[in-house]
């Protein structure tokens, strides 16, 4: 029963990893940008929520009403002011600029908030849980996180395939030069994609900050979890990404059950095993 519990926890946390991954693959899909600062921006969202909860006296979940639009604005601005200038045939500028951004965000957070671990407190929901069968129970918060993750991914799927902005994303991803010919301003479309990416990871960042401690140095591991979920799931498929996140979460849970020191290692080794056996991931992009 202990094992069932661990695996269940792994599945539920996998929803968060899937959200990290969705933000990452969204911008890669639309503009072929790999954002090394992705994880640091997730941590930034956690700190912004911390400030919001402390100054406004609201709970972390309520703070999302402020943090999500704020992160979207930051994303749009970042893209228009900085990242759009790095896009082109050369791989180096976007990688190195986002790497520099990662260093800046980490050290900026360190300067303002110190290296101390922080946590967001959501009150009663943190301890509430429902027993499923004897010995197996599901926490209200992890369950809520997972449901939110699934709903968000469903929402993004609908946005991509049923709305004008989703069409614009896909068209720009296919052929940016021709997208301009139909009246799409790439710089704006890219800005919207980054805004959406950061809005999604803001939600994941705040949820994770309720669940576990965070500090300024945690960005890279968030980036890596998201990245591993993307590759395990297969590029360019949102439901695959959710599966990738769940696989990663379960692998970490099993690793942690064997030995606490093996939690992260088990996740990484699962990722490397997938890369070795099935480099296209479990759910590669569906070709039309």
């Amino acid at each position, binding site marked *: 029963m202990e094992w069932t519990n661990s695996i269940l926890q792994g599945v539920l946390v996998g929803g968060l990893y899937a959200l990290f991954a969705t933000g990452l693959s969204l911008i890669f899909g639309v503009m072929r940008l790999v954002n090394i600062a992705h994880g640091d921006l997730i941590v930034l969202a956690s700190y912004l929520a911390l400030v919001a909860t402390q100054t406004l006296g609201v709970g972390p979940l309520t703070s999302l009403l402020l943090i999500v639009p704020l992160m979207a604005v930051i994303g749009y601005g970042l893209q228009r002011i900085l990242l759009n200038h790095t896009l082109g045939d050369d791989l180096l500028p976007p990688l190195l600029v986002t790497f520099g951004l990662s260093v800046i965000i980490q050290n900026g957070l360190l300067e303002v908030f110190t290296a101390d671990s922080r946590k967001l407190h959501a009150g009663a929901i943190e301890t509430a849980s429902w027993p499923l069968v004897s010995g197996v129970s599901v926490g209200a918060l992890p369950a809520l996180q997972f449901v939110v993750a699934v709903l968000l991914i469903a929402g993004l799927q609908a946005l991509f395939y049923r709305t004008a902005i989703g069409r*614009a994303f*896909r068209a720009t991803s*296919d*052929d940016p030069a*021709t997208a301009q*010919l139909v009246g799409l301003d*790439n710089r704006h479309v890219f800005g919207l994609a980054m805004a959406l990416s950061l809005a999604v990871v803001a939600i994941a960042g705040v949820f994770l900050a309720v669940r576990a401690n965070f500090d300024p140095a945690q960005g890279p591991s968030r980036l890596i979890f998201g990245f591993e979920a993307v590759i395990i799931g297969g590029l360019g498929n949102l439901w695959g990404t959710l599966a990738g996140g769940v696989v990663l979460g379960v692998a970490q849970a099993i690793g942690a059950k064997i030995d606490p020191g093996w939690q992260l290692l088990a996740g990484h080794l699962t990722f490397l095993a997938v890369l070795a056996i099935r480099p296209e991931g479990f759910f590669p992009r569906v070709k039309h």
Partner: protein
Amino acid sequence: MRDAPLLKVADLVAYYGDFQALYGVSLDIAAGEVVAIVGANGAGKSTLLKTIAGQLAARRESVSFDGVAIGGDPAFANVRRGIALVPEGRRLFPSLSVEENLLIGGQAKRAGRWNLAAIYELFPVLGERRRQPSTSLSGGQQQMVAIGRALMSNPRLLLCDEISLGLAPIIVKDIYARLPLIAADGVAIAIVEQDIAQALAAARRVFCLREGRVALASETKDASREKIAAAYFGV
């Protein structure tokens, strides 16, 4: 403003990187007029259309649309003004369906008579296949989507780059038969073709480019085969 041409190109110079492709091209197109732009491979025809559409840099005054200097403005801004380009090679969006390709053409949200229903009336086959991925269509049908996508922006000037390329003659004839319907309500059309006969039959005036310059500008009825051949080959 009625007398002013819709598009005026004056002494246009254009480059691909370091390579100069246009050496002072001047021409104009009136509203509702169909013109043909012909010339050998490498004469500068596609460059001219791309520069007018805004895909290549140009001096501001060298392109005027409806009396406003627009040279060098980005393509997305020119679409909103009413200049639509049907690009060479069609360039449909492969991950979009036929209908989505058309819908995204309407992205610029200009008012006018072209909407999905009107496009499906113009090219009925597209209506039948609207749910299919654009890549599953035949070459001729894909060209219809490309033209339809450009029309969805309700342009005042439609630029067609080599729309007959790689298509069977019967399909080309079919597509050209629709051009008068498009021009009927005052839309100006510029057709770039290597197939001279097809273009001349559809156009009122012809411009022949050679080595990045206008070698001949004439009413089609006055342009004899010999005159065009001389301008085309420079002999």
